[in-house]
C-alpha cells in the first residue's frame, strides 16, 4: 500500500475534513492509515486496515467484542481514537495464530471446548484471554472466570468459555514444556 494513494482516497472521502497519518505495527507488520481525527480505532482496524476479525458489538466499551492488544495490553478499540494509537503495536485476532497457521493455545482451546457458537464475540474473548494468561498463566476456575469477566457472550452461557480458559492454560504450559 502507498500512503499517497490512501491520502488521495481519504481526501476524496472526507471532503474538507482534515486527515492524519497513523503509523501502526499491526500483527507484526508496519501499516499506515490516513484517517480523520474522530475515526475510532475499531473502525480504522476494520475499515481502513481491512482486518474485519475485530468486531464491534456495542460501541461503548461494555461488550468487549472489539478488544485488541495494544502493546500487549487488552484495550477496547471502540473506546479509542485511531490517531491516539499512532506509533503503537496492535495485535488483533488475525495475529494470534503462528505465522505457519498453527492455532494459538487459546484458539486451540476454543475449538476443543466448543467455546464459541455464533463467533461474533469470540475475537474479543481470544485477545482478552491471551493477555490474561500472560499475567495468570495457571488460573484456577475462579481466576478463569475473572479473566473473561468483562466480556459479553449471548450464545454460550460462558460454560465452555471458562473451560476454554483452563484448557488454554494447559496447552500453553504443554507447549512451553515442549510436550505439544
Amino acid at each position: 500500500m502507498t500512503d499517497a494513494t490512501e491520502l488521495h482516497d481519504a481526501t476524496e472521502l472526507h471532503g474538507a475534513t482534515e486527515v492524519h497519518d497513523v503509523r501502526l505495527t499491526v500483527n507484526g507488520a508496519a501499516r499506515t492509515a490516513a484517517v480523520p481525527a474522530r475515526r475510532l480505532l475499531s473502525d480504522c482496524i476494520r475499515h481502513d486496515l481491512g482486518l474485519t476479525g475485530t468486531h464491534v458489538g456495542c460501541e461503548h466499551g461494555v461488550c468487549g467484542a472489539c478488544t485488541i492488544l495494544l502493546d500487549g495490553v487488552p484495550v477496547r478499540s471502540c473506546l479509542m481514537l485511531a490517531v491516539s494509537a499512532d506509533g503503537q503495536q496492535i495485535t488483533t485476532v488475525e495475529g494470534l495464530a503462528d505465522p505457519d497457521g498453527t492455532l494459538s493455545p487459546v484458539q486451540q482451546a476454543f475449538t476443543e471446548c466448543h467455546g464459541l457458537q455464533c463467533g461474533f464475540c469470540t475475537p474479543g474473548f481470544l485477545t482478552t484471554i491471551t493477555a490474561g494468561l500472560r499475567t495468570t498463566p495457571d488460573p484456577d476456575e475462579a481466576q478463569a472466570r475473572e479473566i473473561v469477566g468483562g466480556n459479553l457472550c449471548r450464545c454460550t452461557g460462558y460454560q465452555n468459555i471458562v473451560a476454554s480458559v483452563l484448557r488454554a492454560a494447559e496447552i500453553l504450559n504443554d507447549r512451553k514444556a515442549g510436550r505439544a
Partner: protein
Amino acid sequence: MSSMFGARVQRVEDDRLIRGHGAYLDDLGEDALVAAFVRSPHAHARILDIDVSGALDVPGLVAIYTYDDLPDKLAEPLPLLIPHPTLTHGRTPFPLARDEVNHVGEAIVMVVAADRYLAEDAADRIVVSYEPLPAVVGLDAARAADHLVHADVPGNLAARSTQERGDAAAAIASAPHVLELDLEIERSASTPLEGRGVLARWDDQAQRLRMWTSTQTSTGVRAAVAAKLDLALTDVDVITPDVGGGFGVKIVHPWPEEVLVPWAARLLQRPVKFTEDRREHFVASAHERAQLHHVTVGYDDDGRMVGLDVRFWHDNGAYVPYGLIVPIVTSTQLLGPYKPDAYRVEFDSLYTNTVLVTPYRGAGRPHGCFVMERTIDAIATALGLSRTVVRERNFIQPDEMPYDQGLIFQDGRPLIYDSGDYPALLAKLKDLVGWDDFAAFQENARQEGRTVGIGLACYVEGTGVGPYEGGHVIVETSGKVKVATGLTTQGQGHQTMLAQVVADELGVPFEDVEVVTGDTRRFGYAVGTFASRTAVMSGSAVALAARKARAKALRVAADALEASADDLEITNGIVQVKGDPDSGIGLGTVAVLSNPLRYAFDDAAKAATQFAGSSDDSKPPVAEDDEPGIEGRAYFSPVRSTFASGMHAAIVETDPETAEVTILRYCVVHDCGPLINPRIVEGQIHGGVAQGVGGALYERMAYDDSGQLANASFMDFLMPYVSEVPARIEIDHLETPSPLNPLGIKGAGEAGVIPGAAVLAAAIEDAEGIPVRSMPMSPSDLFELRRAYSQENS
C-alpha cells in the same frame, strides 16, 4: 466407520471464526455506500415537516430519502407476515414513516453517504418537526385506552383470541378448591451481539439484485424484497453471511432497511450497506416477553387440576408484522406436561407506543411456563403437598401418547404431543438436583443464618414446526459431498450437525461433507430458522436427500460392478459388495460414471465418454426417467410439530440484607429425542439457561411514561456476564424418539431458556416464604417484595 450421529464432533465452523476470518455482514462490502437513519425521538407524534436543507452540504453525502420518495409498493405498509383470523386490527409500519411515528426509533429518513460518520453527520442536520401525541406505554395504559396508538384501532386491541377445551367455567365452579393468581412478566429482548445489517448490490447489466442480510430467513427476505421492488424471484439472490446471533429477532422480515437498502442500491447504481448500531438495535428492532396474566384454577383434594382458566394481556408494541405467534404460543404451550380436565384461555393483543414485539428464544413459552408452574406451586402450597407430587398427579402419562390437548397450535394444526415421558424426566431431575435431600440442606443453612430455596419447573416445547424444509446432496467427481439447505444459521453449528447426518446416511467420511445454509443460489425453497426446527426439519430433509443420492449411487455402481444394488454397501466413501473391500469403487468414480460425457475434462472423466465402451448402445445414455449425476433433493414436511420436553431445578440463596439472588445449583433434564451432537445440544442449553437467568433476574426494558427506553445500552440493560451465570449447568438427557420424522429427533434450541423465570421464581419463593408473582426479580424488586409482604402480614 463409526456412526457420526451422536458423536461429540468438533465444529467445522470454528476454524474460520477463531482466526478472525468470519464474514459477518459489516465485514462485507468495503466498497459500499453506507446508510444511516433519522429515527423518531418521540414515542407518538405526527410528523409536520422534514427539512433536509441543512444536510445537503455535508461532504460525502449521496442521497436523502423520505416517505415521499418511495415508489409503488415501497410506499405501502410492510407485510403482515402471519395473518390470523382473530387479528382483526393488524397494523404494520411503512418503511419510512409517512405522517405519524408510533415508537421511539421508528425510521423517518434514510441518508446514504460515503461512510457511516458522514451519513450520521447528515442525519444530524436533518430537522424533523413533530406534533407530539399522548404515548400509550405499558399494558395498563393500553387496556385503559384513554389514548389510542392507532386512531383507527379501538381500545388499542389488535386481536382477541379464545380457545377452550371442555367447560372450564363449570369445572372450576364445581371444583373443591379454587385459586386465583395475577402473574406478570416484563419485557426483554433477543439482543444478539451482532445487530441487524444488510448489503445490496444491483447489477444493472444483468438487471439482477444480490443482497446479504443478517437474517434468520434468506428465502423470506428474497420473496419480500422481490415483491416490494417488483423483481422476479429468479433475479434476486439473498445470501446469509455469518450471523452474530439471532435468538428470534432476525426472523422478522423484511425490516424497513431490508427493502430500502436494495432499493437505494438500484437507484444509485452503487452497492449500499446498513449496519445497525447498538442503540438502534434497542429501539428499532424488536422486544418480547411483556404479558400480564390472570389465572383461575379449580382443583381437587389431591391437587389435580379440574378446570383452568387463563385470561392474559399481551403487549405487542407499535405494530404486529409477525402476527400473534407469541401469545398463541403462550396460550397453547402454557399447558406443558399437564392435563387439566378443562381449559379456557383468552388473550388480548394490545398496541403500545413501544418497539414491536416478536418472538425471542422461547417465543411465548417462558411466560406460559411461568404461569403454569406458579399455579401448580400455588396449589401445592395451598394443600400442603409436595410440589413434585402435585406435578406427578397432573402429568400426561407416557402410555397416553400421542396426547391431544384439544387446541390449535401456532402452525394452525392440532396441539397433539407425539412423544415424551414426563414422570421419567421428573425422576431424573430429582436425582440430579438431590430433591429429597434438600430439606436437610435448607435446615442446615437456616441454622447458619443463610436463606436458600429450591424450585423446579417443567415445560413442553413444540419444535420443528412446518411447513417444510428441503435439502440437496450432490456427490462431486472428487468424491466430496456438497449439501445445501435453505434455512439459515446463527451459530448453532448447523454445518457440523447436518454433515454428521449426511455422512452416516451416505456412508462417507464426515470430513468430505460440506454444508451450505441460507444461500438462495444454492437452495431456493425454505422457511427459516426459528422454533427449534433446524435439526428436525433440515436434518430430516438432508437425510432423505442423502438416501436418494445413495440409492442412485448404488444403482450406477451396480451396473459398473455387475452386481445387484441390494448386495452393495457404501463404506468410507467406497461402494463395494457387502463385506468385500476389494470389490469397491470410489463414490467420485461413481459420480463420473453417472454423467455420460462427450468431453473428457480430466483423466477420470475419460471413463464416462462415449467411446469408453462402457454403455449399452441399445439404450439412451441417460434413461428416460433418469438424470445425470449422483444427487438427491428431498423435502421434509411433517404433519405437525414434534414436542420436546424438559425440567429444570435451581437452588438459590438470597441475601438477607442486599436481597441479591445467587444461584447455587442449576440442573437441566431434557428430552429432544436422539442427540445428533451432544456437545452442540449442551451448548444450546448453556446459552438458553444464561438467557433464562438474564430474563429472570436482570433484564428488563425500562420504558418511562413518555415511551423513552431509558436503558437502551449495554451499560444499563443488564445482560449476564460470566459472573451472573451459574458456574456449572448440570445436564442430563432422556431420549424418547419422535415418531414424526425419519431421525426421531425433536428440537433443542430453545430448551434452556423456557423455564428460567419459572424455576427461579419458585426457588426464590421457597427461600423467602413470600409468594412470587412477577418476574424479573432484581434485588430492588425483592427488597420491595419483602417490605410489602411484611407490611401486609404485620
